[in-house]
């Protein structure tokens, strides 16, 4: 290898490292902030005596912000939204992958338009509606509105997985003497299981990360971590270490799940438009 080439290689690596410093430093800084004791918050930057007090305060609900409950809420509504979308979306995805018909094309297009619709178009009327129906600040209300996020994702991605599966497998099962239902459950479903797992996790992450729905449609009982973390910034004197701790706690589940589904991310992120 020539010196020139090696030099260019180093330069490329250096550029890459530079980007990743930009990408990772904020996360590292949050960790640092969250471990700072309150009295060293503004007096030092990188040298301090680390403490878990910030986390204790946040998870101990002691600032008047029931963060643990928000965390549980996030878990419940995200999980509920994903499950509902799976139950409702899988049959639709399967039907539209196997049979081209007008109803399914319209449904698919409507769902895709949800992906790009400004959320507030739906939320403001829902805000009015929920007040009337008593769904404001409830799990049911949140799970309903989160379908806007999870259902299009699950239906579109699963349709692309089902479409990749040759229908001849299920046809073979029919000729083997199985009913259509059995062909679906015994043949098609097991084969798209990795896809289901990946898309469920991705949908869970997106539901978890959602902010605008809980901001407007919950106030306390069903509020989630994204809104909860922001409330640490409120007040006259923002508590940086607590905010950082809350932010970190709230990003742990999506980050862990994301690392699990790396391989499947491309299809999920692009709504099935790009397969890897």
């Amino acid at each position, binding site marked *: 290898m020539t010196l020139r080439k090696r030099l260019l290689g180093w330069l490329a690596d250096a550029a890459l490292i530079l980007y990743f410093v930009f990408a990772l430093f904020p996360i590292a800084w949050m960790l640092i902030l969250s471990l700072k004791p309150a009295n060293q918050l503004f007096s030092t930057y990188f040298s301090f005596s680390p403490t878990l007090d910030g986390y204790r305060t946040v998870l101990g609900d002691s600032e008047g912000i029931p963060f643990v409950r928000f965390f549980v809420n996030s878990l419940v509504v995200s999980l509920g939204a994903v499950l509902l979308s799976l139950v409702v979306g899988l049959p639709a995805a399967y039907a539209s992958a196997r049979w081209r018909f007008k109803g399914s094309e319209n449904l698919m297009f409507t769902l895709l338009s949800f992906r790009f619709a400004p959320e507030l178009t739906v939320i403001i009327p829902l805000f009015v509606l929920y007040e009337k129906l008593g769904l404001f600040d409830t799990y049911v209300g949140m799970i309903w509105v989160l379908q806007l996020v999870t259902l299009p994702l699950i239906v579109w991605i699963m349709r692309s997985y089902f479409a990749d599966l*040759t229908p*001849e*497998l299920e*046809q*073979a*099962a*029919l*000729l*083997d*003497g*199985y*009913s*259509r239902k*059995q062909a679906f459950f015994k*043949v098609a479903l*097991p*084969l798209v299981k990795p896809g289901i797992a990946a898309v469920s996790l991705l949908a869970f992450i997106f539901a978890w990360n959602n902010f605008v729905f809980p901001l407007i449609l919950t106030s306390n009982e069903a509020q989630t971590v994204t809104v909860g973390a922001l409330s640490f910034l409120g007040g006259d004197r923002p508590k940086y270490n607590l905010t950082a701790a809350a932010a970190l706690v709230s990003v742990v589940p999506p980050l862990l799940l994301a690392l699990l589904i790396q391989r499947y991310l491309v299809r999920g992120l692009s709504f099935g438009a790009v397969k890897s």
Partner: protein
Amino acid sequence: MIGLRGVRKTYGKVTALDDLELDVREGEFFCLLGPSGAGKTTTLKTVAGLELPDSGTVEIDGKDMRGVEPYDRGVAMCFESYALYPHRSVYDNLASPLRSPRYRVPPERARERIGEVAELLGISGLLDRPISQLSNGQRQRTALGRVLVRPARAFLLDEPLSHLDAKLRQQMRAELKAIGAVRRTTTLYVTHDSVEALALGDRIGVIRDGRIVQTGTREEIWYQPYDTEVARAFGRPRINLLPGTVTGGGFRSVDGKVELPLPAGAALPAQTNPPAQPSPPARVKEGTDVLVGIRPRDLALRGPGHELTGTVYVSEVLGRSVEVTVRLGEQHVSLVAPRADAAGLRPDDPVRVTVRPESLLLFEADRPQCPGRRITP
């Protein structure tokens, strides 16, 4: 036993089956031969009930199959794509029909049956393997095994030997018809390989553009092909087709270098008006553009018959015989001769070729999109 009456199937603007008529008799081994895209697979799937015809009816055992689900039709199908369950082992794939609600048998009986079939197909050693670890040939045999493992009213086999290597294919071709289950069961066998069709088919149906062009025994298809396309489909090397016209004395090629006597009784198709006098021997109007078909094995380097002279263009040894391409005027014809007869032939050597007039096939000239129909014999 299996009957398709005026079956039509379209996918959008593409017509897959175009008023297809087909009759497969009880117990027979019927080969459906055609190029890819001719509608072979669609025909099988229509019989199986996996595709529903736009119009026309499918009958099995004389019963209209409209509204009958695939699992109630009692047919077994071997898919060209194998359609094996990739998440299961070979054994589980073979066991799939025997565990289904329709064809369930006790596990011991299933084990026995799977053993027999695996033995028959030479895949006994693979039973525990997952499908992903099989070669294409092994997959194909597994797919065939899944068909044979249980009794069926009919077997529908879609190119079941196409992915085997040459040697195994030949062996399996010989063995397939000897398999007891196949002998006893009506079989509709789809292939694009005319050798396979000739070797296996009790009867052969030639399919093209979604229609059955000709149905018949191998002799009928060989000696009385419906048109030039069917004639071209069977036999390697391919049939020689010389373009020319009908003259007073018989046939003359376009370049005028080849003259052949036409067999007696060469007749016009019924719809054209017959000429008054019986001569030329064929009742084809003089001056009609025609194609004369000569099978390479009907041309000889020695022996009785009409003689033609030409020069050797190229020769290629095929084991005990030799394929010689001879230049006759501006045409090339190939012939297959015993090696002894062709010994010492070099390119550009003058050569005499003989042909017996009764082996000649006379066709109408090809037109675009419409191969010439046979006139005689």
